[in-house]
């Protein structure tokens, strides 16, 4: 298309002189601020040249001793079951987050909720998002006791923050037509949400849940390190005994399961979105870009 139109030459106005960049000074100031911050930080970290130069060697040594991984020993100790337990925790946690966040998202969306309710709900999402799962688990473990239920609950509560925010954005992007149709027939607010909004956002929201599930699998593996169930405890105990071949096996199993779930979940997400809006999900890069923009607030052209 572009090549078909002949290039036109516009020679009416003389080209404007480009404005000289004025930000050179500011750029140097930014570099100076970063340099000072880094120098100050390094000074606080007890870094000696000796340690700095020795660290890559030490790390390499540990990784080398993990090969070959002791899969037989790991299977005897029931590591595969622990990895699956982490997946279960992530799944239940994601469901708790989904069930709690969806109704709240309707109360936080600008197009369907009044200001007085939407402001506190949004602040609630922000506060929840700021507290990591591990910290929640630290608070929950004395109440629920050690075990997977503490982990699932911590993940569930933390997920409410992000899931709520994403679902709110999905609801704010709906077509108002069906909502007006429900209002025109005299439907109540709840009916409008159920028949006018929910069918429109459900595909997007479901794929958000799956995306959060991928994140939560990693999070639940970590939660085991402080005793909230799953594979983390296994990693910690093998590292304490410096049984590196077993550590290698634990790591390998975790990586395989995480990658498998990422791949499967991405495939399902792609199908959900493609089925919802014909053509819209054909390009997975677009979907990723949208999620990334959500996560970072940065929109790449």
């Amino acid at each position: 298309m572009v090549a078909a139109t002949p290039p036109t030459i516009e020679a009416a106005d003389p080209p404007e002189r480009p404005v000289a960049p004025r930000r050179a000074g500011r750029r140097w100031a930014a570099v100076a601020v970063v340099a000072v911050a880094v120098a100050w930080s390094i000074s606080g970290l007890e870094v000696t040249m000796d340690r700095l130069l020795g660290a890559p060697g030490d790390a390499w040594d540990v990784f080398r001793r993990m090969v070959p991984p002791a899969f037989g020993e790991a299977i005897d100790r029931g590591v595969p079951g622990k990895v699956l337990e982490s997946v279960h925790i992530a799944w239940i946690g994601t469901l708790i987050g989904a069930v709690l966040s969806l109704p709240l998202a309707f109360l936080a969306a600008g197009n369907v909720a009044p200001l007085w309710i939407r402001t506190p709900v949004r602040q609630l999402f922000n506060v929840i998002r700021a507290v990591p799962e591990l910290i929640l688990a630290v608070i929950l473990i004395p109440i629920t006791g050690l075990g997977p239920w503490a982990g699932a609950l911590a993940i569930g509560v933390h997920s409410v923050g992000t899931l709520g925010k994403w679902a709110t954005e999905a609801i704010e992007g709906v077509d108002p037509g069906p909502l007006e149709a429900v209002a025109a027939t005299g439907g109540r607010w709840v009916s409008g949400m159920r028949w006018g909004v929910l069918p429109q956002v459900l595909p997007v929201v479901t794929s958000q849940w799956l995306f959060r599930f991928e994140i939560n699998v990693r999070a639940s593996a970590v939660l085991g390190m402080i005793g909230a169930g799953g594979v983390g405890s296994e990693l910690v105990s093998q590292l304490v005994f410096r049984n590196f071949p077993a550590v290698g096996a634990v790591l390998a199993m975790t990586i395989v399961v995480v990658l498998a779930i990422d791949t499967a979940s991405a495939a399902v997400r792609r199908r959900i979105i493609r089925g919802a809006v014909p053509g819209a999900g054909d390009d997975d890069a677009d979907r990723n870009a949208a999620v990334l923009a959500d996560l970072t607030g940065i929109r790449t052209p």
Partner: protein
Amino acid sequence: MAAALVVAYTVMAGRTVGFDLSTFWQVWSNPLWEKFWPVPWDWVLDRHNVLDPLVETFQIAIVATLIGCGLALPVAFAMSPLTAPNRVVLVVSRSIMNVVRAVPDLFWAKLLVTAVGIGAFAGSWALSVFSLAVMVKLFSETVDGADPRPLEAARAAGGRHMPVVRTGVLPTVLPEYVAYGLYVFELNIRASVVLGLVGAGGIGRVVEAQRQYFRFDRVLGVLVLVFVVVFVIEQVSVAVRKRLV
């Protein structure tokens, strides 16, 4: 069929996890809550108890952001079909980064604590690996989407690979690079709070120690202080990012 499978799996997972709705109301009547109150503010605001480890947390985050993002620049270029020097580098770097990303962040921390010893030094390295993984994921997509025309022009003029990438792609993606760097810094500030739970230095080590003494009032005070400070830093960083892009 699929729905039935999902429901069956959910029931099975719920059983394994010990799903128990009664926790939700038992939480409120739990006598342990009294241990969270009152918060000993003069202990929390003491320099040696809390403020020094908090400063250490931010130092870890700053160093890790710089190392991770610095390494991410060449790795992201190696991972994009647009700028990879050849196919082998592309495939190898993508596979390695996929595996690195599949290892949860605190697993890295624990491994490095074992390798180089307990403390902030291990934490900085662990967080550097984490920043590298996140930054490469974010930034390589920007590189993928960069305008290929300056690159083609530089190639057509006979440039070698490195100068072509530096002059053809780097200037167009630099603003996003800085913005993502700030975003990774925010993530690192949050992540460095929990590093101490596995012995990798920072404020988490105070939380872990007090938790083991069952001083939940102190834990709560530390957490409140941390989240106020983290919130302020995030707001500043978000404001800077908005002006950049």
